[in-house]
């Protein structure tokens, strides 16, 4: 406050969030993961749409896309996407709860973060078992 008047010199202040000393919390990690999973899902979407396009177009084209889809790389992308979609799914439902003014107490919000992370792993395993 005192420095603000009369002086042209700007005081160097730490920017927020100050990453070197930032203590990560469940609420921030679960929020960042929502954004990361939402964007990472595009890998699975692009592979899936390409595979579908190839199936629609011709036999040789499908052979190529299907080889990629069923390779270790394709399986890695699809399994990763499956976890990402379940995480994003649960985190999105959490936002619907938050909008309804539910679960906003810190303890509950942190617990819901764990529900998203552990729940997404459970749902991923469950989907692989069922499908």
């Amino acid at each position, binding site marked *: 406050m005192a420095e603000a008047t009369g002086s042209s010199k700007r005081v160097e202040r730490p920017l927020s969030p100050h990453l070197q000393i930032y203590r990560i919390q469940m609420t921030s990690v679960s929020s960042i993961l929502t954004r990361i999973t939402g964007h990472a899902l595009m890998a699975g979407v692009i592979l899936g749409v390409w595979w579908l*396009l190839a199936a*629609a177009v011709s036999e040789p084209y499908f052979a190529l896309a299907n080889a990629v889809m069923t390779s270790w790389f394709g399986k890695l992308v699809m399994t990763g996407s499956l976890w990402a979609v379940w995480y994003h799914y649960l985190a999105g439902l959490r936002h619907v709860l938050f909008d309804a003014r539910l679960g906003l107490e810190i303890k509950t919000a942190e617990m819901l973060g764990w529900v998203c992370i552990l729940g997404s792993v459970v749902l991923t395993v469950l989907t692989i078992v069922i499908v």
Partner: protein
Amino acid sequence: MHYMTDRKRAVGAGAAHTGTLQHWFMTVSGVALAVMLPVWLYLFGAAIGGTRDQVVAAFANPFTAILTALVLVVSMRHFAKGSAVMVEDYAQGAARKAGLIFVSSLAAVIATTGLYALIRIAL
């Protein structure tokens, strides 16, 4: 004396220059996806690994085709609008504009390609 209402002066003054429509769209599309995805994930997952004839037969099914089309369109709009928020958070000026155009275009290209494939399989 101000003839403009408080609301009129406030509209567009936020960081995103728009109101709450974006947030509401994400809620509506998100809930729609939450309803559709469990069934769609099962259908899509079951189709992976099949021969071309099996895959074409799976997506020729009217229910699978319509559901896949809906998931594609809704999810790509959901992505475009959600990704736009990220661009607005991290980029300024020309980079922001380029980023917004890019994510919106990418979503449109993917959705249209998927719809083309579905129509070609259906016909």
